[in-house]
């Protein structure tokens, strides 16, 4: 009998191989299980984002449609105050002629118009007339003909801009997103004059307001979570449902109700006036400004703070506190030194969730933010749907992404990301 027995695994090496095989099989199975989700995320999430981000630097429109002009401008010095020579004017006429046939002339003009206003109409007009202009130009000179047709062709700045945009990959959208501009004359990168700066201030404001919203949700959410965690399961669950209730109402309804409550002729002001706390001529401004955004968004994002806090608090054994107090600690110091440190993972998780959600919020600031309570995302939306400057929108989006990742990294350095717990 014993001689017939051949062990499945004869030695260590075979055992390892068998284990590895088994493990690989399990890994394959696991991978197949997550494959649908992975594919979905790749196709539905990563690819569109990458596509959008790639617009922030690509410049195919100009490079593909103005190839002759770009090569004709090769020797021309952008820092000089002289117009480029006849060659460049011949080239732009030919490029325009082809672009007009493909109905791209105005699109080109629109693109350059982002950098130099007036170009949209220049390209539209010239594109429509280019077929008539070229025979004229052949008799005399292209430069004269175009300059006679519209003197904007004689602006050196226009040619500087075209030269600046002559590479397939350009940094200009990113520079614009940071209120910077490349000056071709002096070949330097400068900050825009103060009456044209928009984005730096908006980024700072977005971060500041998001931070205050996070702080507000923490101040309001902590006691609620504490209460729910301490109550018997039945009442606790009821309160939890109340916390979740706002999720079941439309975001727009919630935002609009804040307008009804907070406006100067609104419910809160009416009550304050009726009680005599404030005069009728001194009604408080609580909406269409930063305050409005902070209040409305704190309300909307509160559940995202309460839930992680609650689930972490639920796991803290009440005996810790009892032990501390029985050992002689004052209740406050017991809470502060024993209970509170245990809730930090929940605070971390809640704070990160609220902050990240807040920083990209769009519709609520748009409705209640007025002039001082709007976010960078409102400008991104503007560039996507109104100005159609998708390149700049993509660059602003990328900048926001970098900002969020940086803050996440800072958080990891200071607090430690392992410290986050959802329950």
């Amino acid at each position, binding site marked *: 009998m014993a001689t017939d027995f051949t062990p499945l695994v004869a030695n260590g090496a075979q055992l390892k191989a068998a284990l590895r095989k088994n493990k690989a099989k399990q890994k394959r199975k696991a991978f197949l299980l997550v494959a649908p989700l992975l594919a979905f995320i790749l196709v539905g999430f990563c690819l569109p984002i990458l596509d959008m981000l790639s617009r922030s630097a690509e410049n195919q429109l100009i490079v593909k449609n103005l190839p002759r002009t770009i090569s004709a401008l090769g020797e021309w010095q952008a820092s000089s105050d002289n117009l480029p020579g006849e060659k460049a004017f011949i080239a732009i006429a030919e490029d325009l002629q082809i672009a007009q046939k493909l109905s*791209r002339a105005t699109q080109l003009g629109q693109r350059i*118009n982002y950098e130099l206003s007036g170009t949209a*109409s220049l390209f539209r007009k010239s594109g429509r007339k280019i077929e008539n202009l070229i025979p004229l130009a052949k008799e005399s000179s292209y430069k004269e003909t175009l300059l006679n047709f519209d003197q904007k062709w004689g602006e050196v700045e226009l040619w500087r801009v075209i030269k600046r945009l002559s590479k397939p990959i350009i940094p200009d959208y990113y520079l614009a997103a940071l209120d910077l501009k490349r000056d071709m004359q002096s070949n330097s990168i400068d900050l825009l004059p103060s009456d044209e700066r*928009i984005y730096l201030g908006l980024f700072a404001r977005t971060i500041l307001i998001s931070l205050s919203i996070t702080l507000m949700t923490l101040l309001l959410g902590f006691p609620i979570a504490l209460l729910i965690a301490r109550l018997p399961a039945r009442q606790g669950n009821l309160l939890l449902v109340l916390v979740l209730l706002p999720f079941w109402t439309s975001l727009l309804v919630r935002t609009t109700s804040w307008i009804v409550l907070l406006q100067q*002729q609104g419910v809160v002001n009416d009550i304050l006036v009726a009680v005599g706390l404030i005069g009728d001529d001194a009604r408080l401004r609580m909406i269409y400004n930063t305050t409005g955004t902070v209040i409305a968004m704190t309300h909307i994002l509160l559940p995202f703070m309460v839930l992680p806090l609650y689930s972490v608090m639920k796991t803290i054994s009440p005996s810790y506190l009892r032990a501390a107090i029985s050992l002689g600690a004052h209740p406050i110091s017991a809470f502060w030194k024993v209970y509170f440190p245990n809730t930090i993972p929940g605070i971390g998780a809640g704070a990160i969730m609220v902050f990240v959600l807040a920083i990209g919020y769009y519709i609520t600031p748009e409705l209640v933010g007025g*002039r001082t309570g709007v976010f960078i995302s409102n400008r991104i939306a503007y560039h996507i749907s109104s100005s159609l400057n998708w390149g700049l929108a993509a660059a602003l989006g990328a900048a926001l992404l970098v900002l969020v990742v940086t803050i996440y990294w800072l958080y990891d350095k200071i607090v430690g990301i392992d410290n986050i717990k959802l329950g």
Partner: protein
Amino acid sequence: MSRNTIIALVVVAIVAIVGVNYLTKDKEMMAPKEAKEANLVIVSWGGAYSDSQQNAYHKPYMEKYPQVKIINDDSSNEAVPKMRAMSEAGNVTWDLVDVVAADAIRACDDGLAVEVDVNSVLAKAPDGTKASKDFGDLLVSPCFIPQIVYSTTFGYRTDLVSEPMTSVCDVFDLQKFPGKRSLEKRPINNLEWALLCDGVDEDDIYDVLGDKEGVARALAKLDTIKSEIIWWSKGAETPQRLADGEVVVGSTYNGRLFSLIEEKKQPVAMLWDWQVFDLDGWIIPKGGKNEEAVLHYLNFATDTQRLADQAKYISYGPARKSSAPLVGKHATLGIDMAPHMPTDPRNAKNVLLFNFEFWADKRDEIDEQFQSWLAK
């Protein structure tokens, strides 16, 4: 040459020939005689405006031609970016889109919309006037078929002012008319009004706005009431604020104010002074799948009677000259609509026309200055 290569070459050649033929085929653009069976996706603004189109155009058309089904899509406020995305993705699912003139010009420039030969597609006026003449200079883009003239103008609370407001400059007068104002959060219109009230002549407005100092001058005028302005971005915000008494005066589209005053009976009156005319109308997205059916519908929906009918439901002026005498009473309120039209001579004493070319060129630059001013 292997067989596969030959087959591949033949396929490429066929595709190329068909493709070139397709591209170069001169398609005669005419409204077809018969309505084909089709589902038309028609995009518009939603709300009261879509209802007026439903009543004046869609319903009678579908009754007459039951083989056509019209599907409404309320995406007009994002029409151009969506059309651009559809065109990039090569899947255009819309057949007809209602947009303001500036968007139509934009879409046409970008090659997103089809150019329409107005005289062969659209119906003549009852007296035989060609469509191109009947619409006249409202045909601001070769892709655009105007439906209505609307205006952006002010409404004010009659019970919150000491005397009726008569001039747009009253909006800038905090002494005489204290209280909050509701203005649109964009430079267009606001800068024009500011300059008019800063003493600039109507004819010089766009010369002044042409450089940064001019824009700064307009913004300085707005600065005098900046603390009292509540900004709006959706057309419904001003009527709501007027109804709540949150603002004393505010700008919005005249049709919104009409419904606030006549339908909701709020104590609000119109301040037509220096209203800004703008146009709204149809464009056909390039690459749509029902072009013939759309042309047939357009021929019907933009004829003289249909445009006049729309004014029964909403107080916007029909774009055809021949429709004006046919404008009658409101369908449910029974009041005469003519005095509520922005184009009525009594309302149109001082009028600005939306300057498409200027804003197409300058909007991005001026918007930067405006936003920067807002943030201060």
